């Protein structure tokens, strides 16, 4: 039996000490309960597991969600095909992928020097979804780091300035591979939005099984090959 429980059962325990021990042990119990609850919720509702790949025994809810998402994609594809354009459908799917997840910058800088002020304004505008404005502030940075280049690229993409977004992503790749997985994905979407199908295919093929959005990339590739 642990010391804490021994202490709790001790005869000379003051009320304050008793409260302190109870506070500690009940926190551990409730924290453990919450972890179990959240683990289940993350798996069932968000498809996130501790092991990177979702197990085959995924919850029925997840299956239904995937089924609905697939149905939605198929609906878009069929509609566009009926309209007689086969190149537009995948770019619509790409736009869907771009829209489905909220992209936010993780933090703001303190804004002491002029450079930091621009950086802060860029991040703030980005998170307020003022992408054109954000891009302008990023452009004003004298020495952008890799994170700046990444979010600048995203700001350009999200403000539909696709050509410049591609250029910024390339620039980023040349400075390091910190954002390589994300850039591969967003470059693929950008090519699709520009209807540069061959380039998109090349880019999607660079997404490895352990990379971010591999499954989505495979779906897009399959879609492209079926055209």
């Amino acid at each position: 039996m642990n010391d804490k429980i021994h202490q709790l059962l001790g005869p000379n325990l003051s009320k304050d000490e008793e409260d302190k021990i109870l506070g500690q042990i009940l926190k551990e119990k409730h924290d453990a309960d919450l972890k179990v609850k959240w683990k289940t919720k993350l798996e069932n509702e968000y498809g996130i597991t501790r092991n990177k790949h979702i197990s085959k025994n995924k919850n029925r809810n997840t299956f239904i969600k995937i089924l609905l998402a697939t149905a939605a994609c198929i609906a878009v594809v069929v509609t566009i095909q009926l309209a007689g354009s086969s190149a537009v459908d995948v770019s619509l799917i790409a736009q869907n992928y771009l829209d489905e997840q909220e992209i936010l910058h993780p933090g703001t800088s303190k804004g002491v020097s002029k450079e930091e002020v621009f950086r802060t304004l860029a991040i703030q505008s980005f998170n307020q979804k003022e992408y054109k404005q954000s891009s302008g502030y990023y452009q004003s940075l004298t020495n952008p780091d890799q994170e700046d280049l990444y979010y600048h690229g995203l700001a350009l993409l999200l403000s539909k300035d696709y050509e410049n977004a591609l250029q910024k992503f390339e620039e980023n790749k040349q400075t390091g591979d910190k954002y390589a997985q994300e850039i591969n994905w967003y470059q693929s979407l950008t090519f699709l939005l520009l209807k540069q199908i061959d380039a998109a295919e090349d880019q999607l093929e660079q997404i490895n099984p352990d990379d971010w959005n591999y499954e989505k990339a495979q779906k897009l590739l399959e879609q492209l090959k079926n055209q």
Partner: protein
Amino acid sequence: MKQKNFGLSEASFQKLITDLKKNDTYFFEQVFLKQFEETVRYLCREYRSNHEDAYDATMDTLIEFRARFVEGKLAYGNLRFLFTKMASQILLRNLKKKGISLDDSIVAMSQEDEEPALDDEDLEMLTNAWQTLGDQCKELLTRHFYGKMKLSEIAKEIQKSPATIRKQKERCIKHLKDHFGLKKILKS
């Protein structure tokens, strides 16, 4: 400002705290489980962490964030930034425990060296003892010890006198301790 606070207004920030104090985690989950994947990816990218370590650190951050909310240690301001930084610190703390050090300059968190109060056997014993408590006891002890509500606040909310609540708390604790004592006798 809402963007910096996971889309929370000041009023919803207060509601979140009130709910957590009553151990109602629904709203907290709605807001924070959405951030889980983004945070895991951030940790993998920034620290070259593997997915499992990033997952554990993000989970620990959620637990720590809940505690800080009920303890009144979080102010409405830039929760997003704080959450990300805290996740980074917790990841480094966890890795350090495993003997992996990535960055010594990171400031250690206050709970870094705090050892768990219970081992698995004790946790099971506590869970069993907890199950023997009535609903009112469970709610009272949870709100007071886990939700950090004062007994006077609980009394006001459920429209009972503080003395009644104090007495009830004593009875609930005695029940738990008796259960532990019995187990101890049975084990020896």
